[in-house]
């Protein structure tokens, strides 16, 4: 009973918050062309990834050497079946860009999921338990945060070798400190809010406070950070591909296509332009969507930009 009372005191319960956030979000969406564009772009990429098998005219590794290095269909040397041309193996660029959405989103999505899982665990422990635990976690997090992220990723990638799972784990682990810092800060703030203080005073178990009261209040800032980090990971995947440290070359990730097509930039530009465009448009869309989410889910963060 008392517990229910405490719950009622919590001003930012997801249900009540949604009641405020949803109409506001829709309102912003309709009045901000940027947000709308972001939503459209991200939905397109998502749908492309989900329905790659239906959308792509060819398989990602399908092709004949006889059709290699052809430009777009509307160019003189182009083939009607290959709208965006073919790569050096005769594989269809359009199909690979479509399947690439899968790889890039998988890297971004699961990477962020892992990073936030680790980050939330560490951040909540540090923020809520305090003392030695906090000091230790904060020291490690600060150390990792002050380190150039890219150098960290490069070194970890060199240690583990290249495959999709490794890339996801690398991003998940190296990006976790960003989430840990955010969560720790939020938890520290929430700990002193009335309803939490009351809950502690009433002897509510720690796990229940963490799960029932703190976690829901973290959703807003977390989702926002996840969006931005996701676009950053799609970016870093391209960077790792550039250094030959990302997924194996036959996997159609945008980064791989860009890194490979880069060698032919001067003579077969279409091999790298379209995957490059895909990266830029996705990052663009995710960023716009992130701006919108931030405004909708967490008005407090709107000013921090």
């Amino acid at each position, binding site marked *: 009973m008392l517990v229910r009372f405490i719950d009622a005191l919590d001003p930012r319960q997801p249900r009540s918050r949604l009641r405020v956030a949803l109409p506001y979000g829709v309102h912003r969406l309709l009045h901000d062309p940027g947000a709308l564009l972001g939503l459209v772009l991200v939905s397109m990429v998502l749908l492309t990834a989900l329905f790659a098998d239906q959308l792509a005219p060819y398989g990602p590794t399908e092709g004949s050497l006889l059709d290699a290095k052809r430009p777009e269909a509307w160019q003189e040397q182009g083939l009607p079946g290959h709208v965006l041309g073919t790569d050096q193996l005769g594989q269809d660029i359009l199909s690979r860009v479509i399947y690439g959405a899968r790889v890039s989103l998988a890297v971004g999505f699961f990477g962020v999921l892992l990073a936030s899982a680790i980050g939330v665990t560490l951040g909540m422990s540090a923020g809520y338990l305090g003392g030695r635990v906090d000091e230790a976690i904060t020291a490690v997090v600060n150390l990792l945060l002050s380190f150039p992220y890219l150098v960290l990723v490069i*070194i970890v990638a060199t*240690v583990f070798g290249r495959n999709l799972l490794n890339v996801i784990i690398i991003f998940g682990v190296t990006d976790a400190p960003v989430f840990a810092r955010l969560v720790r800060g939020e938890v520290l703030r929430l700990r002193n809010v009335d309803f939490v203080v009351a809950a502690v005073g009433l002897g509510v178990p720690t796990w229940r406070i963490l799960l029932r009261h703190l976690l829901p209040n973290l959703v807003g800032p977390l989702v926002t950070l996840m969006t931005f980090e996701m676009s950053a990971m799609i970016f870093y995947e391209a960077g790792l591909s550039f250094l030959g440290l990302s997924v194996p070359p036959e996997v159609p990730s945008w980064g791989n296509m860009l890194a490979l097509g880069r060698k032919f930039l001067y003579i077969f530009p279409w091999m790298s332009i379209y995957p490059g465009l895909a990266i830029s448009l996705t990052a663009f869309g995710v960023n716009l969507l992130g701006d919108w989410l931030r405004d909708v889910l967490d008005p407090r963060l709107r000013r921090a930009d």
Partner: protein
Amino acid sequence: MRLTGDPVGLMVARNATPEQREAFRVAHGFDRPLAEQFLGYLGNALGGDLGKSLRLHLPNTELIMQRLPATMELALAALALSLLIAVPLGIVSGVFPGSPLDLLARLIGLAGQTIPSFWLAMILILVFAVNLRLFPTFGRDSPQHLVLPAVALSVAGMGQMVRLLRSAVLEVCRENYIRTARAKGLSEVVITLRHVTPNALIPLVSVVGVNFTYMLGGSVYIETIFAWPGLGTLLNDAINDSDFPLVQAITIFIAAFAIGLNLLTDIAYDLIDPRARQR
């Protein structure tokens, strides 16, 4: 930390016999247990000895110091360039939200997050070096050689700074003391220069330090593309050649550098921001 791959495979002739390989191993201490290798290395590092490069047969400290000036030059130039553009643009766009300059600022802000820097670097070479012949393609011979790599390296940080400044200015403009200044009848120019700008620049200080370390990371790509003889190319070579002692040395050096820089920005922040000082 010991990387995968085996230096023996790269350093020794491909048709070397097992005995010759063993001689190499013993000569470089690779026959000892990993933990022992690492602890020994760490102990030496604390004493300022970062070991010797396998590939170049020179002390790592010497190699890093050889390359450091080039990287510093590039990173500082990129930082200066991003500040030079981001500060005026960020302030103007914050003071005049919705203006064409604001649009430009938002575009630059997004460019940093939507164009991979290595991609931009290659386009810059194609357009400004090969086609227009305005700038040299590679190397570090003259001030002109600095332009293209500095631009490529600066864009990501520049975008972030513009975004940050813009929102900082927007926020400051809503503060009471600005309203007071307006009420006193001060001109908009004076308000912007005397009151808005100094306050909006405070959060920038903490970002500058972070940006600088990020530029050290980005230099791995940019230096490689522009054949810039700095730490980034050294690290790339060391990774490619499994030169573990050198990779370790560069990592430790950059970590120490980044931590030092972080402390420095924290101190600067405390000095500048009176609110932080009270804490």
